[in-house]
């Protein structure tokens, strides 16, 4: 890790929201095609953000804005640290801090929907964090390091079950059906983000995009190859594959209750990661013969 790489990481962090916005535009188009309609332009998420930025400033209280700013800062920091090759565990804690600030910002206003949404957000953090942590543990078992720097190893062959568990985490983290419990637009009207408007809503949305970018970056760890071009193409492919799976599941399921979400993620998600970690350990200790 040298200075040049830090500069590159900063540049990538600056352009990441545009990439995620474009991916979300593609998502809205694919979703529309799955529902037999035309769908919005590909740049629709960018238009939405620009529109929100142009609206007048309205805020409920300063506390919420401070906490929301901290949330966005923490998400950006987590993504930048990932690119800079920091420790996955530190990234995990910074991501948790981001989620905590987001929840507190939701609690900072007395709107019942915001409070309900924040409680659900907390429960989903409790649900996905052990799975994410154990997924990092699995990565450590295979590569021998917690550093987020790209490894040559093809992790998807070592950790297929962990990858499946991460799909669950991705559904929760990206607020996709059936696990879009915290923001549930048709139920609690956006949950923690209900009280933001204009610029501040745009800011929170950009924070979500950075979280999505970090999740995709974690997914991209699962494809490694000594040849840098093959590795890059493979990483892109695996991210797009994961994104397509998320869209497919989003369009073919209805929202579950937050209890059901927590139960599925904490049982199946945890079981998949633990079993996978045990299998990797058994192969490494030559308990199970492997060619």
């Amino acid at each position, binding site marked *: 890790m040298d200075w040049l790489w830090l500069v590159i990481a900063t540049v990538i962090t600056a352009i990441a929201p545009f990439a995620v916005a474009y991916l979300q535009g593609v998502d*809205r188009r694919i979703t529309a095609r799955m529902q037999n*309609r035309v769908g919005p332009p590909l740049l*629709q998420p960018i*238009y939405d953000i620009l529109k929100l930025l*142009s609206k*007048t400033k309205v805020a409920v209280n300063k506390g919420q804005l401070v906490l929301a700013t901290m949330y966005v800062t923490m998400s950006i920091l987590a993504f930048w640290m990932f690119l800079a090759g920091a420790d996955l565990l530190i990234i995990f804690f910074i991501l948790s801090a981001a989620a905590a600030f987001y929840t507190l910002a939701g609690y900072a206003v007395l709107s019942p929907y915001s409070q309900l949404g924040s409680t659900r957000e907390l429960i989903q953090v409790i649900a996905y964090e052990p799975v994410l942590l154990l997924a990092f543990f699995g990565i450590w078992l295979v590569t021998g390091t917690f550093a987020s720097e790209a490894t040559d190893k093809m992790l998807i062959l070592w950790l297929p079950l962990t990858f499946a568990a991460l799909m669950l985490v991705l559904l929760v983290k990206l607020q996709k059906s059936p696990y879009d419990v915290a923001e549930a637009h048709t139920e609690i009207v956006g949950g923690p983000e209900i009280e933001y408007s204009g610029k501040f809503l745009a800011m929170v949305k950009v924070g979500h995009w950075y979280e999505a970018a970090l999740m995709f970056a974690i997914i991209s760890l699962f494809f490694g190859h000594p040849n840098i071009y093959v590795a890059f193409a493979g990483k892109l492919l695996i991210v797009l594959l994961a994104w397509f799976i998320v869209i497919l599941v989003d369009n073919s399921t209805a929202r579950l209750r937050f209890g059901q979400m927590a139960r599925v993620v904490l049982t199946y998600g945890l079981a998949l990661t633990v079993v996978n970690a045990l299998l990797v350990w058994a192969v490494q200790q030559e308990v199970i013969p492997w060619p």
Partner: protein
Amino acid sequence: MGGPAGGDPLALKSLIKSPWILHFDTGSCNGCDIEIFASLTPKYDVERFGILNRGNPKHADVMVLTGPVTKKTKSRLLALYEQMPEPKLIIAVGDCACSGSPFTNAYNTEGGIDTCLPVDVYVPGCAARPEAIIDGVVKALEKLDKLAKGEPVQPAHMRGANDVPAEVSDGNAAMKAVLGPTAGPAAVKKEG
């Protein structure tokens, strides 16, 4: 100020490209509400214009109102209007919202939406058709566009008595443009 979006052309373009809707029933019979929901379905697909139904005044740009304003809903209507960040537009959907129609002078209603709030676009019809509602939203956005170009239209919430009147959507023309000249109630009358 210089109009909506501070006169910035990019911000204005994005405002026109992404109108988020708040739908509020001020005392409608639900006929027009059903038609509004019909226009959100895949058949009419308003999302291709960037229109999303948000159900939250703080996120919304366009208020779509149905029904005559009853005395009970008036305070709620005003509260919702106050919570929307500017620039904002109001569309009155259906005959009742446009003028109070059969409920004019009823003891429990105030009349049409324009007795309480400045309306930008009137979409007549009982019930208004989805084509007419989409046309109404498009007309509202055209109004914003005119405003940006400095043409003599003011946003409804700044409008005085002597300014340019609100747009009226022609639902039948809009429907014919979509379905062809044989569609619509006129064609049905001829056959019958």
